[in-house]
């Protein structure tokens, strides 16, 4: 039996992963969260709900996504065989849609006509706008004003899909401020609004349900590994901002003790510079956005600004389950710097003909390092969580090219 068997029982009834998680919200939201918890418990055990979710994933998202052997890149690196879980091939171009399909179904069953979301890179905003359009729900997306600038293609996509994008000018004008503003909206419009949180953070039951909806990727990858490799992989690698693509991949493997797991945080300019977004590597536990988790904060407990080349990882917190997995040592958390990320991004374009998202390129950057320490008969599965079309302006700017 796995020494990690108890992990599958988490969170507990109050949303705790060890000392992490929980429900740290102002009183107005307590009732809505209790209702959501109750609704989710009921529906997640309901075969009809699961069937509807699976059907949407198959026919609308295009699942299962392939597990692709990056042979040329692996050969070039001369180490382990790297496999890419192609979440970039999902409808809307990232793993985010797995979760929004699930939460939109919850919204539909709850009868609320309006959904809101926060977004960083815009992928979750696009995925929310997409499912809202399909279900005829009114959709407003909060996005940090700085992110609106650096992710303009996604802003336009959301508008095309009928959503309203609300730039957030407060604080650092990035993802955390978008989440503050979405929470303020929700507290005001809690009767008719469903808040579709985009990552495994927020108050209970969000970390749990976002993980569960994303775990389809891990279940597929596990099955595909057995079919295509003939055994489980030696290691899994995924980038971690809030950490939903990582938990989606990791969770179905947690009790496979022989499978090592690596979460890769945004190292920005390098941990030593302080300009990064790596709370698990350089932060400490605190409470933000409804849960206890590792945070980037100053000595007085104020949240500090983060830095990452990728808007989707530019967040000072991380899902509480990751904090727990770090503390017990089940998952190892590493960093990749902006520079390493750019190199991995270019590698994948050059060797495999795939333009990866800058977020996913963090996982690729660590895979590149790790693979080189391993043997050719070993196997790594990397979550290629999103495609990089949205990032071409950022990459061009880094290369000094104006499009």
């Amino acid at each position, binding site marked *: 039996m796995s020494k990690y068997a108890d992990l599958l029982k988490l969170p507990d009834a109050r949303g705790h992963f060890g000392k992490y998680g*929980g*429900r740290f919200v102002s009183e107005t939201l*307590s009732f809505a969260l209790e209702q959501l918890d109750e609704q989710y418990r009921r529906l997640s055990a309901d075969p009809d709900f699961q069937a509807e979710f699976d059907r949407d994933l198959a026919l609308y998202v295009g699942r299962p996504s392939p597990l692709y052997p990056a042979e040329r890149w692996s050969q070039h690196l001369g180490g382990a065989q790297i496999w890419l879980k192609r979440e970039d091939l999902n409808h809307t171009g990232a793993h985010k849609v797995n979760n929004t399909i699930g939460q939109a179904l919850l919204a539909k069953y709850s009868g609320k006509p309006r959904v809101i979301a926060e977004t960083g890179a815009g992928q979750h905003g696009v995925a929310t706008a997409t499912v809202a359009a399909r279900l005829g729900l009114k959709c407003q997306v909060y996005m940090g004003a700085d992110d609106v600038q650096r992710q303009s293609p996604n802003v336009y996509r959301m508008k095309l899909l009928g959503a309203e994008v609300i730039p957030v000018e407060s604080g650092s004008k990035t993802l955390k401020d978008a989440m503050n503003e979405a929470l303020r909206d929700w*507290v*005001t419009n809690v009767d008719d609004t469903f808040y579709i949180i985009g990552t495994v953070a927020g108050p209970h039951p969000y970390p749990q349900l976002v993980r569960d909806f994303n775990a389809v990727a891990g279940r597929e990858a596990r099955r595909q590994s057995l079919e295509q490799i003939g055994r489980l992989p030696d290691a899994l690698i995924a980038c971690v901002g809030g950490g939903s693509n990582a938990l989606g991949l990791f969770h179905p493997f947690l009790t496979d003790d022989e499978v090592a797991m690596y979460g890769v945080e945004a190292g920005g300019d390098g941990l030593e510079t302080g300009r990064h977004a790596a709370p698990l590597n350089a932060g400490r536990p605190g*409470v933000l956005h409804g849960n206890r988790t590792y945070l980037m904060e100053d000595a*007085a407990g*104020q949240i500090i600004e983060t830095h990452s080349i990728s808007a989707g990882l530019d967040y000072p917190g991380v899902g509480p389950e990751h904090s727990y997995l770090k503390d017990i040592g089940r998952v190892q958390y590493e960093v990749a710097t902006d520079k390493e990320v750019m190199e991995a991004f270019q590698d994948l374009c050059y060797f495999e003909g795939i333009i990866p998202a800058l977020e996913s390129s963090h996982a690729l950057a660590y895979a590149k390092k790790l693979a080189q320490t391993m043997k050719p008969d070993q196997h790594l599965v990397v979550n290629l969580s999103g495609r990089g079309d949205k990032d071409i302006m950022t990459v061009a700017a880094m290369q000094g090219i104006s499009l």
Partner: protein
Amino acid sequence: MSRIQKTFAQLKKEGRKALIPFVTAGDPAPEQTVAIMHALVEAGADILELGVPFSDPMADGPVIQKACERALKKGTTTLDVFQLVTEFRKKDQTTPVVLMGYLNPIEALGYDTFVKAAAMAGIDGVLVVDLPPEEAEEFADLLKGQEMDSVFLLAPTTTLERARKIAAAGSGYLYYVSLKGVTGSATLDIPAVAEKLNEFAGITDLPLAVGFGIRDGQTARALAEVSDGVIVGSALVSQIAELADQPEKIVPRLQEVLGEMRQALDA
């Protein structure tokens, strides 16, 4: 009997309602705070709520968000807030002071350190916006150990069953959030607030104070009739914002605004 209990008992005896102003400590600068506190008491405050600045005040509207930003820009820390209250207590040993803030700066200090320092400074109660009773046990016990009150929120969405649990965990008074929204939000539906307050009054002996969205004497008066006191925050903080560059005008302006509310309450 705690200072907060004494205050409400005395008000009850006199047939008056509590007027509870809120300002953010360190706004517009820490040097102003103690003078502002004394001025509010002079203008008729019965209890003071002092905001502890936080970088991500999720339950607050733009007015108090900006107050936090101004205070943080001046470097106001939680330890500074204790220092300010200590200073205030040199001249005023009777007016209860309740700290209102978010959990993370408290966690950063450590519950134990926070609670001991708060007690030493002469603080009477603490309201942590994002610490509901389910998560508050340890913190509330520590406060109790130092004879400080745990003030909890009730909201329009709070069921009676939940309100009973909250009332059992709380002490001093309960803070009823008058509307679904953030601080400083728009118009209040007074009959709806009254109805909810009546329900809650039936399940607790703790005083009920109402806050969020009280801007003028008329609203304050209407809500005081159905509660034990009113909390006024954004209406004062917006005056501070307006006068941040002319700090000498802040005290008279706050006294004017709060004075009107006091008059309306006592009329």
